[in-house]
């Protein structure tokens, strides 16, 4: 939270006259328009959500440890799977990336702050209210949303608990926050780059976030639209999704996945940027194929708008539609493959070391690729009839989201934390955290492929006996993975608030590339780049 450098405030600022440092106490955090403070708050919110969503995963895994109903009733189980998904997607992964964007984009492009600091403050402060409202549904009559994080109508309209209205409002607020954050990123990148930093010189994290921001602006309103249609159906007698009133339940899925598929890339593109930086630094080699990385990321983003119905292969779309979405989905494998090949080639003939951020990044490449390959399998429509809505799908998207998105976030925190707070984290603890997470994550999600192929549907609170052994393993893995995250929290705490650990040098690592390393001291002062650096 309050890093040394941040508290000292403006140590490196020459012009002290108009500089007054941050407010004291809680009000500093309420009123702040500083990108570093806001970034920190986003990251803390994400960490809190990760813990809450993780506890829900523990409930799910405890119930599924053995066949039979032991701990919770099926309705509460459905609330757990629903809220676990919503909290992890909207509360953990997305805010974490926004937090990293806040911290890093101005420092990487040589800007003093984000372009729209007050909007930045507001887009953060909307979120605690949105999530408080979402979580408060647990205490309402009828309980929390129980219709899955994809909230298919009519289960989420006619058959939903009354709390669905609060869920809709929470989604609206999160969407507003995301759109404002995305606008801020775009305006910042377009207008505040240091002289000489052309687009094709921008660090990849900035590039991937720029593309992500466009995706957010394009699809968040679609999500807002679909929940508004639900609201109309529930409270105002409309029948968008009610066949009896002339509506169409499948329309819901089309609109939802038109948001949902780009959303998937919103959660992974910034990760691509992060690991590109880290792999290059610890291979001591420039990133292979920078230009192709930029183009591959853009192609993935564009393709993400024309593949949505591969989530709906079993709803009965016509043969031609089925073929179109199968082909377009397979096409995504090409630019994604290019990225993986580029990372591997960056490592090739490098001079590699394996600090914690590098370990997480290598694991990212391996495990994300496994998730990508199972995605390729899912793209084959006839085979998808057997995979769809089974644990094979659960394994697939957890592989891209947990050792994918989440590992990249952990890698990013380890990588940039010394720059942020001026101290090195504890490397031994970091390695323990990595290896336990790596083992835990695979123990949790790999056997899900098997039970899925063997026929276990997802979102069921109890299962047939042939799935018992693997489910027990999965539950054990989940405990290992979940608890090992406490090491991370302790490590970050002792480095920042605890002020333990060796002081970091300004460069921190061995010849890293980028303004944040070469043009700024460690820890970074509260205000940076009040005069823009020169980039050549």
């Amino acid at each position: 939270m309050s890093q040394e450098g941040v508290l000292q405030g403006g140590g490196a600022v020459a012009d002290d006259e108009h500089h007054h440092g941050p407010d004291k106490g809680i009000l500093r955090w309420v009123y702040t328009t500083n990108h570093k403070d806001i970034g920190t708050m986003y990251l803390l919110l994400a960490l809190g959500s990760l813990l809450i969503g993780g506890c829900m995963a523990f409930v799910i895994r405890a119930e599924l440890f053995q066949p039979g109903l032991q701990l919770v009733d099926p309705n509460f189980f459905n609330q757990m799977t629903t809220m676990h998904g919503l909290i992890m997607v909207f509360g953990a992964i997305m805010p974490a990336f926004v937090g990293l964007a806040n911290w890093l984009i101005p420092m990487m492009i040589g800007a003093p702050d984000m372009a729209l600091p007050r909007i930045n403050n507001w887009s953060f402060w909307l979120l605690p209210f949105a999530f408080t409202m979402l979580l408060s549904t647990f205490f309402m009559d009828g309980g929390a949303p129980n219709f899955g994080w994809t909230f298919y109508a009519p289960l989420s309209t006619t058959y939903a608990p009354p709390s669905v209205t609060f869920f809709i409002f929470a989604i609206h607020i999160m969407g507003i926050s995301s759109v404002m954050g995305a606008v801020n990123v775009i305006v910042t990148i377009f207008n505040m780059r240091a002289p000489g930093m052309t687009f094709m010189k921008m660090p990849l994290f900035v590039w991937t976030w720029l593309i992500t921001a466009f995706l957010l602006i394009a699809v968040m309103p679609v999500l807002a639209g679909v929940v508004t249609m639900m609201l109309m159906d529930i409270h105002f007698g409309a029948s968008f999704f009610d066949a009896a009133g002339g509506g169409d339940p499948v329309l819901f899925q089309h609109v939802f996945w038109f948001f949902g598929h780009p959303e998937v890339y919103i959660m992974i593109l910034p990760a691509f940027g992060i690991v590109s930086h880290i792999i290059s630094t610890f291979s001591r080699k420039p990133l292979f194929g920078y230009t192709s990385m930029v183009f591959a990321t853009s192609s993935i983003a564009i393709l993400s708008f024309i593949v949505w119905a591969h989530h709906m292969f079993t709803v009965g779309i016509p043969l031609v539609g089925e073929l179109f979405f199968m082909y377009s989905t397979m096409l995504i494998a090409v630019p994604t493959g290019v990225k993986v090949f580029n990372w591997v080639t960056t490592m090739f003939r490098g001079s590699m070391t394996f600090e914690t951020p590098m370990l997480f990044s290598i694991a990212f490449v391996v495990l994300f690729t496994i998730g990508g390959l199972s995605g390729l399998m899912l793209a084959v429509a006839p085979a998808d009839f057997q995979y769809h809505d089974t644990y094979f799908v659960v394994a697939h998207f957890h592989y891209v989201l947990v050792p994918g998105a989440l590992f990249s976030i952990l890698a990013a925190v380890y990588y940039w934390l010394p720059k942020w707070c001026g101290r090195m984290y504890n490397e031994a603890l970091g390695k323990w955290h990595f290896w336990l997470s790596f083992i835990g994550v695979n123990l949790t999600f790999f056997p899900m492929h098997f039970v899925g192929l063997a026929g276990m549907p997802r979102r069921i609170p109890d299962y047939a006996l042939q799935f018992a052994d693997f489910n027990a393993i999965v539950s054990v893995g989940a405990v290992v993975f979940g608890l090992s995250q406490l090491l991370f929290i302790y490590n970050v705490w002792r480095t920042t608030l605890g002020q333990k650990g060796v002081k970091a040098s300004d460069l921190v690592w061995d010849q890293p590339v980028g303004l944040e390393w070469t043009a700024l001291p460690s820890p970074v002062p509260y205000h940076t780049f009040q005069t823009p650096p020169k980039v050549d």
Partner: protein
Amino acid sequence: MKRVGFSAVSALLLLTTSHSAFAEWGLNMTEGVTRVSHDVHDLHMTIFYVCVAIAVVVFGVMLYSIIYHRKSRGAKAHNFHESTVVELIWTVIPLIILVGMCIPATATLIDMYDNSDAEIDIQVTGYQWKWRYTYLHEEVDFFSSMSTPSEQIDNSQAKDVNYLLEVDYPLVLPVDTKVRFLFTSKDVIHSWWVPDLAVKKDTIPGFINESWTKIDKPGIYRGQCTELCGKGHGFMPIVVKAVSKAEYKSWVTAQAVAQAAAREVKEMSFAELMTQGEKVYNTNCAACHQKNGAGMPPMFPGLKGSAVALGDINKHINIVLKGVRSTAMSAFAEQLSVSDVAAVVTYERNAWGNDKGDHASPMLVKKLKDNK
């Protein structure tokens, strides 16, 4: 948390001591018992091997670099970072692989979508939480509900081999016959999946989806609902019983006769009504209103001591027949026979300490049903 710790320990014990006592470990997709399911399995294995090959190459190069190009071995970093030729190669090769993959996938998909020339048409309707099978050209139409007793689910009884995968009335199909399914739903979206047939199709209210199968060999094939459909989602299995054509014919005839007989309304004694009512209640009502009638308010009101169960009997019967608009209470007029409705209403008025003492006669139910 205590529970979780305990789980971890016992899981480790389980792993070290017992290979599953119940069933063998399923690792892979079933090959199934139809031509289509074999094709799908082949596609699955092909794409799987393609993925393995890609993974071996990519991870192989990576591992090589990790071992040989590490600083601790004195590796010096090279400085190459661009090659258009290489980028083109690894764009084009995956493209070719994908086109190669699309060809058999397209053929199989076209085959799966060819619903023509079916000999039997069966409408499959999803209900929360059971299936209804209507044989369109026969006088056969019935519901199929899970038959696993709740004692096995709450762990007070040992679990059967087919735990959660058994039903009261399976779908009976002949082998070597093209059967077309028409899928729809009465309430929310469900999805009908039998892995051995490689048929999975969503049942959507207001829509009719199509699919077909032609089973090669007799047997019992089990599946489950695969679209989240509420609290009973995990408890609406599918059982298909594939029999010889001759056996199928005699089954259809016998079913038609039995169902016609069941539709006949005859008087029943109070004791008969109570016995049948308990069975009907536990199959159809207990998921929401609970076995002990306590319900799960406010979504699912209790029946024990409720104004409905202790009030006017006509009103009570009408609620069961017609459901309650915009709530989870669905209309049971189609789902239950007249005698079942009479029995379940009687049971609800006289079980768990409810003591109306009256009973609903099948005649009365029939009268109310015909009145609409």
